[in-house]
């Protein structure tokens, strides 16, 4: 009964999204597309941070790996489908390669290694001019074609991205409700106990990190044809920190969190346009308030308001405190 309702809500949301561009201008459609692409990368961060309880400071770097992989392959004449899976696959493999040594040691070390990796990727993109175009970037990245029709028009490209994002979202949903998802939750809540129950904590953590990173790669493969231009700036350490911020603001560990967080990150600068360069200040202040009063993020806040109406307030608070309070090392 409840799940039937949830399915209906999802169907309505997807339908609404599919129809949205009909009433919107070119720039608005661009922003919506950017939101979807950002949300895909954020889904990956949420898997790593929210479900598996690790910290990643390299999602923007994986976005970059995906973007350059797909752009370079597209320029070499490789079909988009292949380039797309190559972008995700390479990110997955690199995720395994850097996660493997980092996860031998304590919790925060994955964060440290990804931080170093993030800077390193940025340096490679900037320095290897022969491959990546260096600081001048790669121009004129073609949008893919489908059945012979170019997806250059902004609405067609939006629908294309929507379809891919929906598929990736479904795959993520499948993953987190499978036994793997249960294992992820277990290793976040209590890795020692999980290990004693036969959960290979290192392997699951590594897989969560690699799959989350692959989502960064997939998002990158969509980002390049969306913007039609890439350069090193959006793949630096700073944007990686912003990915982490966005997922926590949305609600880490909740399935809708990344979508909400990405919406805030993409749309807030638009809403705060009147504030010109002050919007970063406002955003930062909001994040701090959010963390202090509702660490479960906007989704948690919405849930709390909802249950306040329906249940005694005390229970809702307990729930909120429980959600992130136990993420201690």
């Amino acid at each position, binding site marked *: 009964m409840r799940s039937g309702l949830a399915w209906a809500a999802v169907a309505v949301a997807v339908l609404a999204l599919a129809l949205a561009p009909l009433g919107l201008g070119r720039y608005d459609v661009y922003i919506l597309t950017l939101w979807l692409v950002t949300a895909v990368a954020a889904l990956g961060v949420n898997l790593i941070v929210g479900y598996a309880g690790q910290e990643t400071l390299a999602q923007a770097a994986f976005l970059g790996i995906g973007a350059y992989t797909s752009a370079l392959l597209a320029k070499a004449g490789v079909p988009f489908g292949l380039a797309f899976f190559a972008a995700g696959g390479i990110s997955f493999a690199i995720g395994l390669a850097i996660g493997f040594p980092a996860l031998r040691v304590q919790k925060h070390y994955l964060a440290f290694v990804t931080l170093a990796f993030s800077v390193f990727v940025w340096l490679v993109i900037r320095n290897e001019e022969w491959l990546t175009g260096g600081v001048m970037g790669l121009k004129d990245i073609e949008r893919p074609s489908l059945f012979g029709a170019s997806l250059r028009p902004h609405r067609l490209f939006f629908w294309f991205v929507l379809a891919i994002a929906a598929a990736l979202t479904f795959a993520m949903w499948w993953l987190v409700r499978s036994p793997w998802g249960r294992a992820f939750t*277990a290793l976040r*809540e209590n890795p*020692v106990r999980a290990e*004693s129950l036969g*959960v290979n904590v290192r392997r699951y953590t590594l897989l969560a990190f690699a799959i989350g990173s692959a989502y960064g790669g997939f998002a990158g493969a969509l980002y390049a044809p969306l913007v039609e231009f890439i350069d090193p700036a959006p793949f630096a350490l700073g944007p990686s920190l912003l990915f982490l911020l966005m997922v926590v603001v949305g609600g880490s560990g909740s399935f809708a969190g990344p979508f909400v967080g990405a919406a805030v990150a993409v749309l807030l600068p638009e809403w705060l346009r009147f504030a010109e360069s002050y919007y970063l200040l406002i955003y930062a202040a909001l994040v701090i308030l959010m963390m202090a009063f509702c660490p479960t993020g906007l989704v948690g806040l919405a849930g709390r308001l909802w249950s306040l109406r329906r249940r005694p307030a005390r229970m809702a608070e307990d729930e909120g405190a429980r959600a992130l309070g136990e993420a201690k090392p």
Partner: protein
Amino acid sequence: MSAVLEVRGIEKQFGGLRAVDGVSFDVRQGEIVGLIGPNGSGKSTLFNCILGQFEPTAGEVMLDGCRVTGLRPSQLNRLGVGRTFQLLQVFPRLTVRENLILAGQEHQGSMLGRLFGARDAGLSAEAERTIEFFRLAHLADARAGGLSYGQQKLLDVAMAFMAGPRLVLLDEPAGGVNLTMLADLRERLETVNRERGATFVVIEHNMEFVMALCSRILVLAEGRIIAEGKPHEVRRNPKVIEAYLGH
């Protein structure tokens, strides 16, 4: 009967402190062995060395005659060794049923099979049975974090049995559990032992509980085994009395 578990000269040093100092013992199929000793005598450290949580400084552990020293806890678990911890360790955000399925799922099929297969990893029926067996049926869909302490303790123990282990190491299962629940717990453990032939090693401070449950008792003091025998023998052993009273 053959020895399920053989412990040979286990030592564990923390800095200058020798927490476990050359412990050897065997546990045979179907036995319930109690491990007692004063606080700080190294019981939990010994467990952790056997179970791969700590790497012992010296010595080895054999399971069914195979050397398993240095294996990770998850590998040992998949070889059929279950355990509980001294402090309560359930997953508060999962339901009772989910906790139990989690406890068994890693023994079902392959990694990929678990990803693409059924959500319950084919364990719903087994979970149901375990829930019934530990008398948690009315709580099956409640979040574990919302259960009372005793109920959580039962769940904790139940999880250790989910995968049908041959050897279970229980660290203070009776700690903090009220009297009625305690009798329940003992009776359940005895039933598992009888019906499934599971072997136990139990650390316990509650002497009544341990004396009634165990067929053989090892006494640990200052990292060494100072006495071993049937419950009534151990009870009268002067070394044991000194170890307890002298500290």
